[in-house]
């Protein structure tokens, strides 16, 4: 009987360690994904919220200057002038 309870406690402990490791894994994966996005120079944003706030007029859809379309294979096109 005593041996059974000890075994049960061991299993509970193992379960707890397992759940903790899963949580740590999820946390690290999320952080790494975030770092990956930041390192490549762009961010994921809450697009739905952004569009809601643009529709309500809180934010603007004014077109930026100083950007260009990334073209595959042909290299980036630059003329040093802003474009609207």
């Amino acid at each position, binding site marked *: 009987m005593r041996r059974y309870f000890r075994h049960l406690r061991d299993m509970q402990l193992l379960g707890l360690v397992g759940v903790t490791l899963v949580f740590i894994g999820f946390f690290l994966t999320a952080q790494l994904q975030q770092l990956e*996005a*930041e390192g*490549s*120079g*762009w*961010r*994921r*944003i*809450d*697009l739905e*919220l*952004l569009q*809601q*706030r*643009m529709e309500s*007029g*809180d*934010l*603007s*859809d*004014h*077109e*930026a*200057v*100083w*950007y*260009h*379309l*990334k073209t595959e294979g042909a290299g*980036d096109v*630059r003329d*040093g*002038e*802003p474009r609207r």
Partner: protein
Amino acid sequence: MSTLVCELCPRECEIPEGGSGDCRIRVNLGGKLRATTYGRPSAIHVDPMEKKPLYHFLPGSPVFSIATAGCNLHCLNCQNWQLSQRGGEEMEQIYRADPRELVELARDQSCESIAYTYSDPVVFYEYVYDTSEIARAAGLHNVFITAGYINIPPLRRLCGLLDATNTDLKAFDDRFYRETNGGTLQPVLDALVTFREEGVWVEVTNLLIPTLNDDLAMIRRMAKWIGRELGTGTPLHFSRFHPQYRMRNLPPTPGDTLDRARAEAMDAGLKYVYVGNVLGHEGNSTYCPVDGTLLIERVGYRITEYNLTDDGRCPLCSEQIPGIWQ
């Protein structure tokens, strides 16, 4: 799916559709880059010019100061992180003011200048540019308070509309920039030289963080560089660090560290070296570099004594003090 490349700052973010640049506010929507905070400032205040800090530019005048959300640096010690480290969609407080309304507001508040400040105005470039054009035509001055992390072609284009800048040179060390600010040093140095070449009045701020960027040899190298590239008359402000945001593990900058930094920079040849964020420090005031006469006494952001002549000279020896005084 069209990916856009933002050319504004040295990050040159490649932004897929529906994503934003690293600054959080330049967003690729439908294959066009949108400046989402254009005309939507989240901070509007009237400050004294000394708060920017600009000590040799229209001293004592009120300056209409604005900022939107977003920033292209991510300083661990950011003072305005609630504003700078968030996207527009995350802000509770957003005002609506197109460039023309902003200039009218500035004039209503009897301000001679508009400052683009608090976060980094680089990221709301289009708003700065359009407002500056209208402000210039209305006889107002434009002041750009920045970390200077911007590519040279857009900066050169903007410089024609700017009157003064205080640029934050965070350390004279690329590693510090990478580890503490998420940027690099060289683009900031290039921006400072560009401001000078384009005739914008330049003052420099260096926030001293204990153990991270308070090495006297590095401060000397920085001061020498400023003297050589920008001129020995360029005001340099050493500012006191206070623990905040993600850097709460370090103490505020000790007073003697600021004193030693000031002495080192002056010994390296700079004529106007100030100490900021320390109330009543003698390094808040301007002295004649020739005879030591007290020219402008400041307590905090207040001017308590003003002895410069109308044309910006020492009243005793007539030394011309560099700056824009009227």
